[in-house]
């Protein structure tokens, strides 16, 4: 029997409220098919968005998304959900700006409230050197039509009344890069929205399904082995972020990626007082306030490579110290939770997208500490790449071969603090 999948709407809410009828699960479970047209490894925002756009934009629905754990259990459910497009290279700006455009229409597109809040984004400058880089970034942004400007300390104080802009601070605030289109989103909702929408279009989502082998014959991928059985497939996409080198190794492909944990923390909820995202590169810290009133803090990656997602006391101590230098009035707030996720760092702080030397084996990796904001555009571009057999213009600069050619992208100035 074909299940009727209802849309979310005010009317549906009312109907369920009155009748007490349970909501249907957002996506279904399936047996593994022996073959799929496309297998996507990794059920984070990247894998799910790619599956959704493959089905919606290109009519390719015989697609499986495999995850060794649960959907959103990787970085996609652990990030601090900051969106922005004020990058440093024209390639980066164009790419992330398209993602913001997709995010702006995502709730309507997916029929899922992703709570995108376009509240503005401030990167503080504590030195002349960082002011200079910010002017550079603002000019690159403006040339690409992206709203971004350098503002002075008074203006910062006006936007964030709690912030300490006096000269007494250990790192006085000289100004900031202000980027009004930036903001935050509800990361779980984005993951679940893509999953539900992909499911409705016929994509199979397989949780608890770990890829343990990738079959390659005559330089071409032929399928994957999983803990639930083997699957034949002519196209396999590696979208496993922190685990991407392990998965690429299965296909005999080496990646310039190293895995570092990134930690974050959240406080008890308080009255809304912080209406923009605030980032300090020199203090290695950033903060935003959620719709529930919690403050979400992030920092830089842990100082050594690791696959462990344990939090550390060093992190919380350093974080508290840095946050209080910016906003001394937060001293009595209590932290509720602290956690870590894995980040796939590349040498040039830019992602790796497209084909590899194994035909049919594609990558969408190297998302480091900044990949959540890119989920929609990366999914759209990877779906295009799979459907047409070549990367679209927008992602051509991000190919794996750039390392062999020595054409690195250099986004470090805009991506070095986590997110």
């Amino acid at each position: 029997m074909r299940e009727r999948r209802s849309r979310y709407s005010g009317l549906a809410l009312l109907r369920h409220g009155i009748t007490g009828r349970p909501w249907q699960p957002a996506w279904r479970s399936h047996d593994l098919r022996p073959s799929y047209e496309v297998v996507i490894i990794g059920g984070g925002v990247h894998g799910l968005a790619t599956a959704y756009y493959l089905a919606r934009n290109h009519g390719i629905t015989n697609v499986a998304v495999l995850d060794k754990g649960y959907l959103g259990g990787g970085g996609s459910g652990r990030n601090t959900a900051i969106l922005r497009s004020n990058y440093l290279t024209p390639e980066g700006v164009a790419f992330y700006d398209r993602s913001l455009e997709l995010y702006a229409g995502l709730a309507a597109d997916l029929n899922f409230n992703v709570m995108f809040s376009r509240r503005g984004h401030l990167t503080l400058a504590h030195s002349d050197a960082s002011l200079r880089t910010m002017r550079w970034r603002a000019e690159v942004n403006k040339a690409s039509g992206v709203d971004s400007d350098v503002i002075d300390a008074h203006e910062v104080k006006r936007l964030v009344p709690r912030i300490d802009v006096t000269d007494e601070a250990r790192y006085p605030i000289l100004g900031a890069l202000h980027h009004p289109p930036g903001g935050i989103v509800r990361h779980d909702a984005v993951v679940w929205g893509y999953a539900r929408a992909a499911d409705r279009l016929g994509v199979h989502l397989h949780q608890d399904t770990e890829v343990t082998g990738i079959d390659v014959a005559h330089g071409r991928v032929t399928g994957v082995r999983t803990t639930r059985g083997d699957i034949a497939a002519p196209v396999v996409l590696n979208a496993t972020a922190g685990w991407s080198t392990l998965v690429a190794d299965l296909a005999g492909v080496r990646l310039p990626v190293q895995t570092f944990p990134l930690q974050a923390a959240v406080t008890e909820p308080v009255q809304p007082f912080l209406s923009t995202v605030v980032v300090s590169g020199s203090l290695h810290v950033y903060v935003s306030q959620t719709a529930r009133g919690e403050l979400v803090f992030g920092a830089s990656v842990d100082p050594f490579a690791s696959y462990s997602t344990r939090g550390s006391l060093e992190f919380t101590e350093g974080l508290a110290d840095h946050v209080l230098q910016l906003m001394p009035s937060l001293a009595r707030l209590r932290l509720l939770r602290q956690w870590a996720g894995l980040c796939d760092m590349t040498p040039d702080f830019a992602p790796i997208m497209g084909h590899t030397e194994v035909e049919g084996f594609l990558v969408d990796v190297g998302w480091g500490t900044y990949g959540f904001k890119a989920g929609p555009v990366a999914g759209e571009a990877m779906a295009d790449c799979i459907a047409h057999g070549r990367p679209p213009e927008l992602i051509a600069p991000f190919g794996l071969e750039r390392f062999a050619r020595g054409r690195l992208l250099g986004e470090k100035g805009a991506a070095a603090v986590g997110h």
Partner: protein
Amino acid sequence: MMLIPCPNCGPRHAGEFAYVGETGARPDPATTTATEWRNYLYLRHNRADWTVERWYHRMGCRRYFLVERNTVTHEIRPPS
């Protein structure tokens, strides 16, 4: 907390050290090809297992040395 065994100072808190990273033989610049050199610069094994890596005793004796560390459990043993 992780203790790093400096061969000069003994086990110290990891915060005193700088992580340098995976080691590998540096190709001879006189004979290497561009590809070999770039592979050396950019490719990493990034194993989820025991890895030999270099650390630097930044806030101590300033020595560089090798340790073998498990990147999943953070156990450390002298390199074999």
